[in-house]
């Protein structure tokens, strides 16, 4: 009998020890999972801050030769990534233009007609689109835009980014609108407002937080995309605002710098800039989401 008790207490002890160990294991590994973020940030910041200066925003990317001459003379690499910054603004801006109205409309349609068979199909296809690897989207934009127009272009790049952004914006709009209380819509209709007015004056403004957050996150997601742009926008050594001409972008420049050992010092400052923009977008999205919580 006593024997029995003692084994059961050691059993309990063992169970408690096991519980504690599991707890420690989970805490340690959860914290270890965060380590890479700080390692990456450290790598980018410590190597990038030196060249993170005004020139980055005012000058276009230097040629390999200029960088080499500067290196030989022990000077910092001349030039910046102005052509990438303007290119990113142009390509992402166009993509925003294409996707926001369309994405909102599709999102509204899906949330308003969620029971229809057709909208179930559309919803399914949206999921399908969301899962397409970015490189495959690059192929598609190449086939749709680059080939027929006969030139690599900012337009082609933005079509690729649009295909990536659209499902994200559709989803966030749909989900936000679905969360709104039905009473909002009913009250509006009861007051004699037209359906259109109810959507634009009541539903969209009340869902603003969620929708806007979704848009910001979609933008921050496509901002760092490189692979689809390699196949579509190609890159350019000068600032270009013509949407039918080849255009650079910040990630495309990082890829070029990576492939050119002379320009290595610029890799890190451009990555730093890209990370800052992306993190700020994420941060604003978080604030908006919190402030405008439904």
């Amino acid at each position, binding site marked *: 009998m006593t024997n029995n008790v003692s084994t059961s207490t050691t059993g309990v002890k063992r169970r408690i020890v096991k519980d504690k160990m599991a707890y420690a294991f989970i805490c340690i590994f959860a914290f270890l999972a965060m380590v890479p973020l700080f390692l990456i940030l450290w790598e980018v910041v410590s190597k990038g801050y030196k060249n993170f200066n005004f020139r980055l925003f005012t000058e276009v990317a230097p040629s390999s030769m200029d960088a080499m001459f500067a290196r030989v003379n022990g000077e910092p690499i001349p030039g910046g990534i102005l052509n990438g910054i303007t290119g990113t603004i142009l390509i992402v801006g166009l993509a925003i233009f294409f996707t926001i109205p369309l994405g909102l409309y599709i999102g509204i349609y899906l949330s308003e007609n969620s029971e229809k068979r057709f909208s179930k199909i559309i919803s399914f296809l949206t999921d399908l689109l*969301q*899962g397409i690897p970015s490189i495959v989207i*690059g192929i598609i934009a190449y*086939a749709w835009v680059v080939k027929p127009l006969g030139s690599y272009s900012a337009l082609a790049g933005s079509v690729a980014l649009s295909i990536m952004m659209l499902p994200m914006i559709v989803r966030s709009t749909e989900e936000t609108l679905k969360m709104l209380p039905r009473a909002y819509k009913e009250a509006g209709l009861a007051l004699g407002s037209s359906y259109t007015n109810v959507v634009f004056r009541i539903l969209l403004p009340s869902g603003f937080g969620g929708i806007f957050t979704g848009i910001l996150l979609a933008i921050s997601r496509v901002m760092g995309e490189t692979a689809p742009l390699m196949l579509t926008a190609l890159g350019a050594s000068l600032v270009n605002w013509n949407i039918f001409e080849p255009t650079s972008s910040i990630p495309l420049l990082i*890829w070029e710098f990576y492939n050119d050992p002379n320009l290595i010092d610029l890799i890190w400052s451009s990555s730093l800039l890209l990370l800052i923009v992306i993190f700020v977008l994420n941060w604003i999205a978080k604030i908006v989401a919190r402030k405008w919580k439904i």
Partner: protein
Amino acid sequence: MKDRIFKISLFAAAVVILLLTAGILYALVGKSLEVFNEYGVWGFVSNAEWDPRAATEEYGALSFIMGTIYTAFFALLLCIPFSLPVALFTGEYFKGKRIASIVSSIVDLLAGIPSIVYGLWGFYALRPVVIALGVNAQGFGVFLASIVLAVMIIPYASSLSSEFLSMVPNNLKEGAYSLGATRIEVIQKVSIPIAGSGIVASYILALGRALGETMAVTMLIGNTNNIPAGLRGTGNTMASVIANQFGEADGLKLSALIAIGLLLFIITAIINLIAKLIMKKLSAA
């Protein structure tokens, strides 16, 4: 009247998705036909030869399919010991606490880092470590690419699993506690069985993510057109071979690359579909 126009325009917008999908399939399939006609679908998929020389031209996708499978699954395996604790930390142990939201937002930031920056980090920071570990002489290969991929998919795997864990009803867990179960036993016997299929679904989604990842892998895997000789070997994934060779491909080779794109599209679509089906079943139950 104006409501009618508005409703029609909403519908028209929704039709765009339909057209988009149809257009994507049309573009991919149409351009793949050349290579499928040449070798047959199975002949293309099962052939590991990738020979661009004019005299002996021959294209098969097997090397890249294997490269993709090696990197994606090894990455998935590597990410579990980190993403699962994160999910348990945020969705179970510290559910709703401030520390949980801090941890989850930090881990989520990993998802915001562009692929190319991961590639740089892998090349400059991790590659010397891999060489020092003696994995292979030059560091590049499946091993290095998988480590970086694993870090990239941690947030995808953990945030969804955490959601499913936190949805486990409290009364069930309380029942188990009242019977004297320890916390880890509750997790093992109650939470994980209930949230299990959701967790599996989130890992399937993370796998889908890893399969299509391009830049980081292209920068780290070594870009050789062969079936990787194990984890130490070099190779190419389906995504990285497209990134490497699409710019100059032409004729049959271009068609072969687009066909690889089509295969990648189908594989990721199936994987996502499975995950979504599992999650749908869960939310219906």
